[in-house]
């Protein structure tokens, strides 16, 4: 199904997955290769047991550039206007910066970019950035930087298997500022085993003292297949209690509110409305985006598909679209915009989900939702158990 935005031009976000890291973080469930892995596997070429040969940076670049060309041809007639690009990973910042430049150039060649300033974000880890690299990013038009700080507590960083120390984060941040980055996000994690409220407050203090434009605060999730998951199954650590995890979250809500941050998505805050991550917002309102690179997910022309590994191809029905729009929109601060829903789906929310509407009203009575004439949004309390509400739609 084709989402008709009512204009002839359709906007498109482009996500570029860079599947390389200095070392694999223990909690990370995203597809990536650590440098060590690569060398190890590279040195054993000819060993038939290594059937899935490691992806070299060269091979990655080659196939990525081919994909960009290919997709630009496939979507030639769609009149897409690219207004956001997001380099995620993995750790995009460990790629030699020229490669980032090459990728952006290829994208600009294959696709029409929006006039003015498209939002171009890149994720980076402390210690992987240099002044030269940052300068080059600016030259390529990258205007948003997302730094994976995760914690200011070295014990926590070690536990998570991060390749940097607490001190590195502030240095990297200052370096970025010096190179003119005025839209910086910092990632922090909470709900970590043995993390105390004090440690969390301290991390928040430190991060706020840097005055970033944007903050992402993630509660630790144990993902199957990760080192941390294995350790947990082996009984090597106990998960933090749900109570403390939520206390940390609600502390952050209150604290960031005082500091003037706008809580616009379950895990995201921005200093001003125009500093929200426009690319990530596309995921919550059924906007179209193209994912490039291994395992990247796309939603274009009403089809959800993912690159290998984890290949998927699913043509969304109207019901799929309705359900996905509903549960993803609930993640946002505005919530489900029933007016937008009706425009996108072509049928009113109440007509698509008459039974669910009753359940939602029940949740509203229990203080988990706010429902007004136009919006249905989670309350702060409702966020804690939002899966219970979202699963109504699947």
């Amino acid at each position, binding site marked *: 199904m084709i989402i008709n935005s009512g204009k002839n031009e359709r906007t498109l976000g482009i*996500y570029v997955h860079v599947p390389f890291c200095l070392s694999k973080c223990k909690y990370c469930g995203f597809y990536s290769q650590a440098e060590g892995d690569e060398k190890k596997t590279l040195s054993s070429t000819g060993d038939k047991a290594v059937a899935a040969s490691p992806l070299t940076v060269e091979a990655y670049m080659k196939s990525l550039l081919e994909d960009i060309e290919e997709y630009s041809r496939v979507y030639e007639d769609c009149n897409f206007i690219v207004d956001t690009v997001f380099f995620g990973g993995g750790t995009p910042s460990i790629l030699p910066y020229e490669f980032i430049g090459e990728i952006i150039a290829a994208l600009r060649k294959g696709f029409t970019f929006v006039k003015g300033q498209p939002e171009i974000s890149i994720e980076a880890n402390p210690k992987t950035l240099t002044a030269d690299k940052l300068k080059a990013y600016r030259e390529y038009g990258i205007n948003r930087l997302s730094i994976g700080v995760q914690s200011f507590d070295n014990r926590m960083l070690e536990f998570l298997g991060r390749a940097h120390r607490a001190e590195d984060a502030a240095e990297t941040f200052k370096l970025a500022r010096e190179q003119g980055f005025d839209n910086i996000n910092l990632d922090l994690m909470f709900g970590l085993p043995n993390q105390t409220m004090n440690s969390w407050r301290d991390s928040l203090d430190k991060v706020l003292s840097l005055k970033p434009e944007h903050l992402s605060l993630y509660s630790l999730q144990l993902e199957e297949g990760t080192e941390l998951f294995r350790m947990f199954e082996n009984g090597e650590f106990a998960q933090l209690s*749900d109570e403390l995890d939520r206390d940390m979250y609600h502390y952050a809500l209150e604290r960031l509110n005082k500091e003037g941050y706008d809580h616009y998505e379950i*895990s995201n805050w921005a200093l001003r409305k125009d500093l929200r991550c426009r690319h990530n917002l596309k995921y919550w309102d059924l906007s179209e985006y193209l994912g490039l690179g291994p395992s990247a997910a796309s939603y274009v022309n009403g089809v959800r598909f993912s690159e290998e590994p984890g290949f998927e191809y699913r043509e969304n029905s109207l019901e799929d679209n309705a359900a996905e729009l509903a549960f993803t929109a609930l993640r946002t601060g505005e919530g489900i915009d029933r007016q937008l829903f009706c425009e996108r789906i072509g049928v009113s929310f109440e007509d698509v989900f008459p039974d669910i509407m009753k359940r939602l009203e029940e949740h509203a009575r229990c203080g988990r939702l706010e429902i007004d004439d136009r919006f249905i949004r989670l309350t702060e309390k409702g966020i804690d158990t939002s899966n219970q509400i979202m699963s109504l739609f699947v």
Partner: protein
Amino acid sequence: MDQKFIRNFSIIAHIDHGKSTLADRIIENTGLVASRDMKEQFLDNMDLERERGITIKLQTTRLVYRAKDGNEYIFNLIDTPGHVDFTYEVSRSLAACEGAVLVVDSTQGVEAQTMANVYLAINEDLEIVPCLNKIDLASSRPEEVKAEIEDMIGIDADDAPLVSAKEGTGIVDLLEAVVEKIPAPTGNPDGKLKALIFDSVYDNYKGVVIYARIYDGKLQEGDEILLMNSKKKYEVTEVGVMSPGHTPTKHLSAGDVGYIVASIKQVKDARVGDTVTLAGDPTETPLPGYKKVQSMVYCGIYPAEGEKYEGVKDALEKLQVNDAAFLFEPETSTALGFGFRCGFLGLLHMEIIVERLEREFGLAVVTTAPSVVYKVVMNDGREEMIQNPTNLPPLTEISHIEEPIVKADIMIPKDYVGTIMELCQERRGTMIHMEYVAGNRVQLHYEMPLNEVIYDFFDALKSRTRGYGSLDYEFIRYERSQLVKLDVLLNKDLVDAFSMIVHESRAYARGKFVCEKLKEIIPMHQFEVPIQAAIGQKVIARTTVRAYRKDVIAKCYGGDISRKKKLLEKQKEGKKRMRQFGKVEVPQEAFTAVLKYDNK
């Protein structure tokens, strides 16, 4: 056939002592059936029987054996069910015989179940022919076991054939012993018809097929028969013998074991133990020992969420057609809606029925706590039999409650005496006496309330003795007892399906156990779910399933919506196996989990 060439006998054995295998060998050795055709005829037919290693339905067959004396003998081999729940059925099939082959595992020795069946056989005046099985095993100790048989049963085991049913050795010795030792039947073929129903099955084409032993007289097609206890009359359409399939014959006469078809619609109309005679020329005295089977254990069976009431009803009807001991009638529960109250011989019988519903009919059902039948004596002296705790009259109207007491015979290796006495004490047992028997084993005789036995006593006995303990029990009397109704409240609402009647002294422990078990099983909700156990208005135990504090996908990044959707779908899938009580969702397994009380 001259009666002197007929031998009617059963094989009695403890579970796993090799009865079914031995029966197979006997059939092979009589040369009547090629071994490849035999399997389906003689092995335990149901998957369930095979898995559990027990015989649920009887199998009967007629064999021809050419003995060393040069004569051909007819062997009517009547298989018996092998579990404590089916004692009456065993006793009736034994009554159809003159003798019994007692199979004792020569590596295990005599077990409680063996004893119980031997006593039943002795009560029926049967000649017991002992044989020792599994002599091929290194751990076999035939001499000791022979001595045990002599000590414990008081029969001569000196010449007991040594058999390996598995390898087929010693079978001929056994068959010769059957010919020599088991007496031929001695009924009067010219007397008035007197036949014993020892089993009946339902056949889709013929209706009920009665398996009977003819004591006196003759029977043939066209005769009008009278079932003396049910007082019903039927015209015989076919008689025959099992060889091993149904083989019609002209007639059956004194000494024979055979089948009768007479357009009978339900097995409950041709009950085991009833006497068949001719309607036109009846015998004056029916055979002794007829007993209408009493259901000892009751429980509710309800369609699980999304299952249809009618579907369950059809299945129960089909099962009942073939199982006279199984009763059911409609009932309703405020918690579970429309369902059935079902009566069983015992807990195993109940489990078998429930498993058959699930496997053979593909139905998902919820079973409520099993209950025995209580005698409630009202203030005005009226007596009410209550088998559903929910139906207990208001306490103010009750003078007192009586509960069924059973005599439990437990046999265990002596090392386990301490733990089993403890178990029996926990279950309110009174020890009558205890005896050390051969082979380092001890027999404990207890009187115990049946409601303590039915839950998981047998499982507990097995697990506390590493499988070596065995149990036999029978109802002896009703006894006045301090019983109370224990209710369970979820989120302050009474869930009647969990109600149970327990002894006052055990109410607190039981209540606490149920609360804790439910706390483990009931998933977290958006709100706190208090779980309470109460007697009347008085709450005696409580726990709380705390509310979900956190159920949120924090990171939803890279636009991989499908992955998140799958997570949510998985969560929703889990909810489908739940049963909703008010606002509380309870997994199906909660109903059985609260019954598994033993924690050792």
